[in-house]
């Protein structure tokens, strides 16, 4: 293992255990001393931590490409050994549009995806999500304890997206394993990443073939029957987009629900407020998203550019540290305090610019319903052992084991 960094401005380590658990002091230091830090670790990257810089770089799609959005340099699967034959791989080597697309492809790829994820469209999934949360709570409420991350938060987004894609919900556990292998554990383990990517890819490939024969009222069928400029959407594109929907929606939303429970377990006054003023919930969700933003994305420098004096070369990686931007005191008063009814909160937890999270309305709905149902049934709860909580970090930060107890 590489030694711990001594100077975070020139040698930060996004996979350092202490940093994953508590990155906030590091960001505070970097924001003041070296607002665009650099490291040689994990393939090398630049890391802005001020809101203005993250905002500016995210919106400058000419100089900063999305063709690779991973925060570490790992081999992107599927590759030549994915067991599906050379030609098919070439044909299917489409990335994960629209998140890995730049304009002009991005424009239509995103437009295709927005209608089924509009606030109105996702409202349709609310009753099912609520029912799911209730069933989960029924399963453990009598025990007086549960793992808020693995027994609850983790179970929600995987089932909702399975429903939307028209895939049996008993696949949800398998999805979660695959997605963690791809996006979380796989970022430092290329073999696991390759195997997980291949499993998702093959599974979705089979689903698409099946849906072509039996179209239904689901997202895969919607994508297969959609047209762009009068032509059907190419099948490889559908595969890439389904891949993205699975990967983008699970770890992320699970992490934000988990972090919200982690906060509420330690703040009885905030629990009481949400119970007594339920109309505060939408604003509170935005504040919890701000304070515990789970997602960091990356950009690849498209041509040599000097950004605020930093000599960035073509091909360099830049980490879009949305979570650090959301704690910048230049924009947010008392950024480390969670103020459920914070008035000024232009947070960028869902990104900013043309790649704004297409699933943001779905994620908000899932968070709100998950917290509403939990607070209704378990209004009084605390962490079993705050020191025992484990966190994942890197691309997506959130609690992974989190014992919660209630009277």
């Amino acid at each position, binding site marked *: 293992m590489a030694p711990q960094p001594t100077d975070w401005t020139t040698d930060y380590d996004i996979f350092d255990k202490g940093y994953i658990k508590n990155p906030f002091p590091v960001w505070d230091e970097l924001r003041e001393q070296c607002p665009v830090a650099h490291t040689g670790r994990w393939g090398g990257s630049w890391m802005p931590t001020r809101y203005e810089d993250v905002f500016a770089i995210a919106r400058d799609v000419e100089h900063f490409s999305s063709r690779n959005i991973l925060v570490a340099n790992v081999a992107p699967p599927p590759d030549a050994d994915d067991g599906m034959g050379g030609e098919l791989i070439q044909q299917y080597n489409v990335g994960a549009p629209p998140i890995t697309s730049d304009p002009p492809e991005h424009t239509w790829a995103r437009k295709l995806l*927005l209608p089924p994820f*509009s606030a109105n469209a996702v409202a349709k999934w609310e009753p099912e999500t609520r029912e799911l949360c209730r069933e989960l709570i029924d399963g453990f409420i009598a025990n007086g304890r549960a793992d808020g991350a693995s027994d609850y938060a983790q179970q929600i987004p995987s089932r909702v997206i399975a429903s939307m894609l028209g895939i049996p919900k008993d696949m949800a556990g398998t999805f979660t394993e695959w997605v963690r292998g791809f996006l979380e554990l796989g970022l430092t383990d290329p073999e696991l990443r390759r195997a997980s990517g291949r499993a998702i890819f093959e599974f979705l490939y089979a689903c698409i073939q099946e849906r072509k024969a039996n179209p239904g009222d689901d997202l895969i069928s919607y994508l297969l029957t959609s047209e762009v400029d009068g032509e059907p959407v190419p099948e490889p594109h559908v595969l890439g987009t389904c891949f993205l929907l699975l990967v983008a929606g699970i770890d992320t939303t699970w992490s934000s629900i988990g972090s919200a429970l982690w906060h509420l377990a330690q703040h009885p006054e905030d629990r009481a407020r949400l119970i007594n003023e339920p109309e505060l919930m939408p604003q509170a969700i*935005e504040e919890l998203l701000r304070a515990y933003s789970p997602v960091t994305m990356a950009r690849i420098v498209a041509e040599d550019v000097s950004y605020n004096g930093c000599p960035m070369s073509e091909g360099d990686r830049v980490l879009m540290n949305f979570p650090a931007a959301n704690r910048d005191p230049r924009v947010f008063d008392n950024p480390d305090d969670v103020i459920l009814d914070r008035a000024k909160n*232009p947070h960028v937890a869902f990104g900013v610019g043309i790649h704004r999270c297409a699933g*943001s*309305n779905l994620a908000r709905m899932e968070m709100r319903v998950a917290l509403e149902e939990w607070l209704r049934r378990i209004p009084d709860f605390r962490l079993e052992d705050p020191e025992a909580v484990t966190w994942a970090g890197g691309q997506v930060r959130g609690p992974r084991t989190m014992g919660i107890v209630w009277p």
Partner: protein
Amino acid sequence: MKVRVDPDKCQGHNRCYVLAPGLFEVDDLGYAKARGDGAVPPEMHEKARLAVENCPERAIEIIEDDAQ
């Protein structure tokens, strides 16, 4: 007072609509525009300012009446 959403900047975060559904509407893709001619009644001035302060894209503009 009037509000205006710059369609080139709006990315459909839906924040304005949630904060002030009386002032904004969103289309099927989630992009926002001001309702009607964008006029903001006095009792909603505060809401309009809130929407401006919460839009991550800085897409909302307030046009104050100059004839007071």
